[in-house]
């Protein structure tokens, strides 16, 4: 099936002019499937980590949001054990005007600003709410353990 123009253009731009700290490379055999890396934002417990993600553009894209999942283990209140992400724009706040780039930037921003009040991993969220310092320590440890080259 021919790839929609939108996906082709987005891919071209992602490769030619990547967002800082983000790479997204489509698979050769499936141009809707992207290997993504996101650098942990400076000043966050995820600093210096390189996190691997997968991103898939469903048939309905851009009317339906892309599917994004962390492949690297991460200690974050809005990301669960399976790497699923709780982010409004990936669900009901999706707008067809959003793009792969904007989605990944939002995921990066989520790393800087965890939101324990809307948790996906409840145990992590509880940890973050009760003792933020200690939770951040664990996040740093995990980043060291799983997300460094």
């Amino acid at each position, binding site marked *: 099936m021919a790839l929609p123009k*939108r996906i082709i253009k987005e891919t071209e731009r992602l490769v030619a002019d990547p967002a800082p700290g983000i790479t997204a490379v489509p698979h050769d055999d499936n141009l809707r499937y992207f290997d993504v890396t996101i650098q942990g934002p400076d000043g966050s417990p995820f600093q210096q980590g390189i996190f691997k993600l997968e991103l898939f553009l469903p048939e309905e894209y*851009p009317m*339906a949001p892309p599917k994004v999942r962390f492949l690297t283990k991460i200690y974050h209140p809005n990301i669960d054990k399976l790497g699923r992400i709780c982010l409004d724009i990936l669900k009901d706040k999706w707008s*067809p005007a959003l793009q792969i780039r904007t989605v990944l930037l939002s995921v990066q921003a989520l790393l800087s600003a965890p939101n324990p009040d809307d948790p996906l991993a409840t145990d992590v969220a509880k940890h973050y709410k009760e003792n933020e310092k200690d939770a951040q320590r664990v996040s740093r440890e995990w980043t060291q353990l799983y997300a460094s080259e």
Partner: protein
Amino acid sequence: MSSDYEYSDDDVDNVFDDDELMADGDSDGDDGMEMDDFKVVPKATRKAYELEYDSLSQPAVEKLMEKDVEYIRGILGVDDNTASLLLRHMGWNKERLIEKYMDNANKTLVAAGVIRPEPEAVKPSKRPITRRATKQRSPSPPKSSGSFTCSICFDDAPGLTPLSLECGHAACSGCWEAYITSKIRDEAEHVCRCMAEGCGLVAPDSFIRGAIDEDGFIRFQELLVRHFVGCNKNLKFCPYPSCTNTVSCPSGASKSSLTTVVPIVSCGARGLASDGAPLSQSQELVKRATGKEHKFCFGCVIDSDHRPVVCAVATLWLKKCRDDSETANWIKSNTKECPKCVSTIEKNGGCNHMTCKKCKHEFCWVCMGPWSEHGTAWYSCNRYDEEAGVNARDAQSKSRASLERYLHYYNRWANHEQSAKLAQDLFAKTEKKMEEMQITSTLTWIEVQFMKKAAEELDKCRVTLKWTYAMAYYLAKGNQKELFEDNQRDLERAVEDLSELLESPIEPENIPALRQKVTDKTVYVQKRNDIVLEDTAEGFVEGRWAWNVSVDGFEAPAAEPDTAL
């Protein structure tokens, strides 16, 4: 599925004189002439167990919506599109909308997605907002044509038609169509906001009509009707699959009325809706004649007839059955209770010499008497009549009484439910018998209709009977309950008699006699059913029924020894 059905739902009074059209297989177009037979004259008097309601087709509901829109348009001085969006935003609450709008028109319009929020600098002073809102809101191509690149699909082919809402966020018509269609089809969402990120404008109906295909727009209108019905407590959507009718029943809408009425309504349609394809006139007639009525309760979530018992009790009963029935059955058949401490015990092997794990009481499993009296006669119990054993069994049966009581009602309830499920078979069997009769006797097609009528009546009565058991289970002991159970018994007896008659084999020489008997019994059963329904309904109005548990909306039960589980 949109015509108004003109017959009333109760064919109770005209028993054998309404020759309904049968599903006799080959129905060609000629059947149209029998149309008039279905216009059963609405009955003048209403029975105590019936209440007033209206069946509305989708166009009828749309008329109601239009009326509201017109009203708001007149008062607020806005156009149809704006009035609709405002009303939908406010859940069709006109009073609140007017109040909010008068309070802060701009804010209300922004919240409803009619206009964009003003930039911070410009304070919403006394600007003529209404005029702004009444501006033409049709699909308008944004200013500069020339080269247009759709911001959604990135297409820049020359033939593209850019469309945008008031906000000017343009996208090509193809993207709009795909977007709105996916909202309507996949998300069942009638609020379609502008595709641009963070833009809260909602596409008005005129825009949607222009942007998508006819099928999609029909679905959109259906969603609007559903939303309207959902917002209005006097309306309820028919729960039957793919039925689009609505019932209006103000007398069943308030929670307090549910202690005195059982708002069973029928949406006016029958049978399963065809999936989209319009039926030919003859098919439509067959469906109306043979399909099951869409009966449901307006007051609760039970989507079938639960007369005579009120919603609160019916719900209580269903919940109890879901929770308890299987467990209770198992306990009854597999366990006994320790004669001393009443713990429930399952005997899964070993001899009859039981030692209760909890209280260490030793007893005999067979006679339930204390083991000490068995002497050396172990492994066999021949002491059934001994006094101690009798006493123990007495105590046992008392503690089992409440369980037994529940199972008594439950088994009868379940039995009638099962019979009702088998009704389809009964109808088929009856149909066969009717054919047989036409062959073996001189009776005509119309003259054998009595069988079908009887089967239908049977089905109806079983529903009533079923629920009388739920009711009786919760009724407090006393005179009223006894009267109720007398009525129940009479109906049950009549129903079983009729049932037996219908099952009896047909012998040609007996047919006239059988016909007479079945006809008489049908009328009698009908009368008994009416009595049960009517008397119960009157009882609710008079507040005659007292319960043995506390039921929402009723007085707490009198302090009698509670026999309920």
